[in-house]
C-alpha cells in the first residue's frame, strides 16, 4: 500500500493506493468457474496516534488497485499514519507512513 499524507493548514490530506485485484463475483466465475473465488477488500481503516481517522466498509465494485483520498483535522507533521485493509479471504495488510 502506498500512502501519502500531507499537512496543509490544519487539514491533513491523505492519498492511499492499495494493491489488490478486487475480483468481483462475475469476474471470478468467468476466470475460475466459481463465484466463491471472488476476493476484494472488505474493510479499510487508517489510524494516527492510535486514533481512527478513516474507516470504510467496501464492496467488490471499487476499481482494481483502488485509490482512497480523504482528509481529516487534528494531525501534526511527523505523526505516524497507519493503514490496514482486510479482504474477503481474511488477508490483511498494514502499512505505515509519516505526515509531511
Amino acid at each position: 500500500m502506498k500512502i501519502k499524507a500531507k499537512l496543509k493548514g490544519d487539514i491533513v490530506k491523505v492519498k492511499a493506493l492499495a494493491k489488490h485485484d478486487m475480483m468481483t463475483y462475475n469476474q471470478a466465475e468467468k476466470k475460475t468457474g466459481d463465484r466463491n473465488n471472488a476476493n476484494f477488500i472488505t474493510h479499510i481503516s487508517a489510524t494516527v496516534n492510535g486514533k481512527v481517522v478513516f474507516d470504510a466498509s467496501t464492496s467488490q465494485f471499487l476499481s482494481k488497485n483502488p485509490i482512497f483520498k480523504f482528509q481529516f483535522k487534528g494531525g501534526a507533521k511527523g505523526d505516524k499514519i497507519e493503514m490496514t485493509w482486510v479482504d474477503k479471504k481474511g488477508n490483511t495488510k498494514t502499512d505505515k507512513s509519516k505526515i509531511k
Partner: protein
Amino acid sequence: MLRRNFLKVGALAAASAVVVPQLNATDFRATKPDTWSAHTVEDAIKGLYGAITPIESGVTVGAPKVASNGGAIPVNVKSDIDAKTVAVFQDANPEAAVIVFEMNEGSILNYDIKMKMGASGTITAIVEGKDGKFYKGSKTLEVALGGCEG
C-alpha cells in the same frame, strides 16, 4: 529454548495489543449484511438505514459525465453536513452497494474513490447526519466501456 518461547509469547501479545484500537470501527459488512447483497439502490439503502426519506440537498457527487474506462471511475463525495456515516451506491452493477464510510472525530466529508461500473448508470450517495436526518446526492453518467467483467 525457554527464552525463545518466552519471546514468541511476547510477540504474540504485542501483536494482539496493536490490533485492538481498530476494533472501535464498525464493520458494516458484518452488522448490515443485507446491504451488500441487495440488487437495487432502494433495497441497499433499506438494508443499511431502514425505511428513510432522504432530503435531496447538501451532498455533491462528482464524477465525469462520460467515463471512458468503467473499470476505474473517479468519484468524489463532498458535503458540509455534520455526518455520522456516508454510503455510496450505484445502479449499473449486479449489486448496489459500493462503500460505506464511518466518520470520526476530525474527519472531513470529502472522499475520493475509484470504482467500477458495468454500464451507464446513476451513483447515489446517502449522508447520515448527526441530526438524525438523511441527505442524498446523485450523479448520472455514461460509461463508454463497462469495467465489471474484464
